[in-house]
């Protein structure tokens, strides 16, 4: 037989004060929230253009973009079949730490199953700055498409310590051969045929009149 009344799971009775507190908590946390105003009434009903400009300038000055250097980070981005781009930032070292120890940026193909082991690192770059960017050229004739990078530091005993490991970046597969354009439609059936990238006209990109479109 199914019970139709709700029975308390706990057998201990609740005091009036406890019930009042629970009721208040539930009310605070789960009270229906009215549908938020989507957007404020639009200009010029509320703020003048001068006021908008003033607020815009205050925010732009006071909250300009900056990197919050709280934890070590390295990010890897693909550019083309031959290049990836890395940026990183490391917190400033503790005063008594080995601040002069060498920093190394290592690039690994994803097949590398030993990212912390320097002997498996594919390419190493010594770096000087704790916050910087670098475009890395990939070796020719590799079949790797997925890479990640790591930042490590060598201590006084020449031990390498990994400080940060990047995301995995997938680089494009093929190089564009900068030769002969496609001569006819049939050639397009040849996989990896020699061809030109279909560029957009330079005049649409390099307009210098100062009021052109983006393309």
């Amino acid at each position, binding site marked *: 037989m199914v019970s139709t009344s709700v029975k308390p799971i706990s057998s201990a009775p609740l005091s009036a004060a406890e019930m009042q507190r629970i009721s208040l908590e539930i009310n605070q946390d789960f009270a229906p929230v009215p549908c938020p105003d989507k957007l404020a009434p639009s200009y010029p009903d509320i703020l003048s253009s001068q006021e908008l400009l003033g607020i815009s300038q205050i925010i732009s000055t006071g909250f300009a*973009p900056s990197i919050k250097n709280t934890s070590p980070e390295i990010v890897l981005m693909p550019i083309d079949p031959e290049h990836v781009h890395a940026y990183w930032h490391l917190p400033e070292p503790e005063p008594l730490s080995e601040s002069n120890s060498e920093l190394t940026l290592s690039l690994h193909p994803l097949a590398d199953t030993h990212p912390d082991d320097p002997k498996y690192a594919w390419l190493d770059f010594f770096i000087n700055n704790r916050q910087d960017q670098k475009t890395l050229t990939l070796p020719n004739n590799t079949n790797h498409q997925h890479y990640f990078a790591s930042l490590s530091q060598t201590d006084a005993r020449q031990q390498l310590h990994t400080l940060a490991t990047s995301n995995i970046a997938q680089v494009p597969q093929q190089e564009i051969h900068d030769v002969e354009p496609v001569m006819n439609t049939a050639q397009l059936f040849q996989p990896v045929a020699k061809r030109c990238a279909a*560029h957009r006209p330079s005049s649409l990109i390099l307009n210098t009149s100062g009021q052109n479109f*983006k393309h």
Partner: protein
Amino acid sequence: MKTGYLSLILHAHLPYVRHPEHESFFEENWLFEAITECYIPLIGVLDRLQDDQIDYRLTLSLSPPLLTMLRDDLLQQRYLKYLHSHIELAEKEVFRTQKQAALNELAQFYLKFYQNTLTVYKDQYQGDIISAFKKHHISGQLELITCAATHGFLPLLNISETAVRNQINIGVNTFKSHLGYAPTGIWLPECAYYPGVEKLLAEAELQYFFMDTHGILDANPAPNNGVYAPLNCGNGVHAFGRDPDSSKQVWSSHEGYPGDFDYREYYKDIGFDLELDVVAPYILDGTTRANTGIKYYRITGKDIEKQLYDPVIATKKAKQHAADFINKRQQQIAALTKKMDKAPIIVAPYDAELFGHWWFEGPQWLEEVLRLASVAEQSLATNACSDYLEQYSSAQVATPAASTWGDQGYYSYWLNDSNSWIYPYLHQAESEMEQLALDLNNLTVTPLQTRAANQAARSLLLAQASDWPFIMKAGTTTEYANKRITDHLARFNYLHDCIRKNRINERYLTALETMDNIFPDIDFKDYCPN
């Protein structure tokens, strides 16, 4: 008997430029020029084709920033002011050139052009250009598709899947709110594809997207039909590849049609040619010379004196070029049909702003192409990619290759020495937005906090636009691009900070909502990572 298809795609996009904090703002002219020279002439083409009962299919992608700007009250008011100012300038030109018959004829041509623009914009469509495009969608001729929310360059935002998901979903939602139905296709900003994005496109119920040629040719496995049939990415989302032949005929600055000597010369404008006091009221600050749109000369040739533009001869040339274009597509189709087991589709995508702004005669060329393709005896017909997918439901399964349609074919135009500095900030802001959404998701959030968090998401999206790194690399209006990206990031930082500290200044928030009033239905909770 139609043996093949031609799919013409116009991608209409401009960055979100709207500055109510200024009484007037020069970069808003980008939109005004595009409305005058591209979108209204395009509507004229579509209206004439409808009047003549021409059967055609054309695809137009409308980016969310463009949709928003076209429907914006402030920009609509400012556009009317812009248009009246151009009518005034043209009237002055008619008067100034009254003793020079040939020039005077051209001045009258421009006066009529602007007057007609005003009639179409104000009287025929009551300032609502989107309704004009929707009308042609309803009539079955125009396929409308969407784009990512702020034209974000997806492969470089892909450090966070949530960032890409929001760019796609907000793009779809913006389209729905303006057009009233769900799009079937998407224009990936800059045709930038990376393997895996199809998963997010499928989540958004999109069926197809476009790629540059090498993205299809380098697919794995190799395509059986080159770029002349779509690839199924493995999850039912299809990739269509750009045909290089038809692309080159229109895009190429050397061999392309727009460089014909009879066409109007873009770079010779009275804003630069006339005495400063004549054009002062119509250029930047009355002192810095700029294009006005009134151009009296034709391309003429290289390193020779420019000759006067003749609209009649230019129109005739546009028709010749259209016939040539259709003829070459027929030849292509004849060759392709012998090799393929299904009808080939030739995909020809272009920036919509090429037609009319850069290539003044482009709309006439397009109209003639669509008219010629509609003739029953032709071996080709125009179609949209959704039509093709309906007709040929099975496609080869393959993973396309990462690619873009930009210079060099990959990501280097958007990631190089001129613009790489933006990515640490963009990625950091995205990460903070996601953490904020997660944290707020577990709390009771007040309406004010909700507004602030939604506005933070808007600021983040506006900072992510691919236009800013593009302009930085192109070196055109770099100061403006730098300012826009740093302003949006500063606005994000401010909102993030004040939400975290629970000290939201409603006046400041209202100011930011007023200035960046895009995506009214945004929900910050969508930034909770899946």
